[in-house]
């Protein structure tokens, strides 16, 4: 990539101004008065303790050598626009947009989505910045496995299709995520998605299934907890 292109591409960091400079000192009274930081922290705590999606991912990451520590690997920050969160591979941090996440169900989905990126970063050599196929694959997996393309969520977006609508949603969400963080044409992004979709849509690690619902996620978590017995007796 030549210097001109490097100067133009900011890899989506413009959406997360808190990554470079915090407006308020972390943990300060001013921060707690003028931001949703405490609410974000509380919802995050609830998500990691109760969401079967999050618990499974945290367990799988620990198993892969990437134990997640809330204070180290999560950061509640103000973000631009309507973005809900992101994974910063340079600092190994999940960013949660405290000004855009106001409901627990939304927090649960964002935490799951970003933990999938973190899990992919932990288990594979993902070239986030230079390989669009890698970025697209992780976005497909995150949209597919986080529950954000469930029937009820699609209904709330006024998308009423039924036959394989989940896949249409995954494509749409992955495309939107790629376009938000990379200066790439829609046509090129769609082409990259097509190239990797089949492989990445069917990669359900670490869930072993597509968790359409909390019950699916609980079953997947049950399987994860019993994995030693499972593989020992195959």
């Amino acid at each position, binding site marked *: 990539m030549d210097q001109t292109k490097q100067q133009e591409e900011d890899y989506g960091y413009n959406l997360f101004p808190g990554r*470079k*400079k*915090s*407006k*308020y*000192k*972390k943990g300060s009274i*001013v921060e707690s008065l003028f931001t949703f930081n405490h609410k974000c922290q509380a919802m995050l705590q609830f998500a990691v303790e109760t969401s079967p999606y999050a618990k499974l991912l945290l367990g799988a990451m620990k198993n*892969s*050598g*990437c*134990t997640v520590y809330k204070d*180290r690997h999560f950061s509640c920050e103000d973000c631009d626009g309507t973005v809900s969160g992101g994974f910063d591979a340079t*600092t*190994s*941090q999940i960013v949660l947009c405290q000004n855009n996440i106001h409901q627990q169900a939304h927090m649960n989905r964002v935490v799951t989505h970003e933990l999938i990126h973190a899990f*992919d*970063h*932990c*288990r*594979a*050599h*993902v*070239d986030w910045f230079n390989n669009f*196929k*890698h970025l697209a*694959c992780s976005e497909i997996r995150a949209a597919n496995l986080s529950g954000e393309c*469930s*029937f009820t969520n699609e209904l709330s977006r006024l998308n009423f299709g*039924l*036959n*394989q*609508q*989940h*896949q249409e949603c995954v494509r749409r969400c992955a495309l939107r995520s790629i376009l938000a963080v990379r200066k790439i044409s829609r046509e090129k992004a769609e082409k990259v998605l097509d190239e*990797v979709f089949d*492989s*990445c849509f*069917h*990669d*359900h*690690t670490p869930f*072993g299934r*597509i968790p*359409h*619902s909390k*019950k*699916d996620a609980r*079953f997947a978590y*049950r*399987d994860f907890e*019993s994995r030693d*017995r*499972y*593989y*020992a*007796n*195959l």
Partner: protein
Amino acid sequence: MMAGSESWRPPRECDVYWSEYKHCKRLWHRFHHYYTFGTSPLCQQWKDDYGACRDWEKTHSAHAKECLQESERKRVSEQRNVTPVWELREKPPADWHMPLNQDKSQDS
């Protein structure tokens, strides 16, 4: 690592096979399977596995064990039947646990 034949037991508790079967047959799950894949889910294998599991618990038959192992190996094989886009790591990223830089400027 495979468990020795003397210590072998079904890969899952028998009740788990039954709960997977019941879950698979539920209308909401069947709907979501169609919503995702455009087809109905195949649930019979869970029921067959439950039967084999119970059979093994009662009789420790080699046939029941083989049926269960074959079914589960097929499930694993289907899950692994993807060509990875990326290369898997042998070790986690070296900087995963490193402390953050403290050079972000902050208002006091």
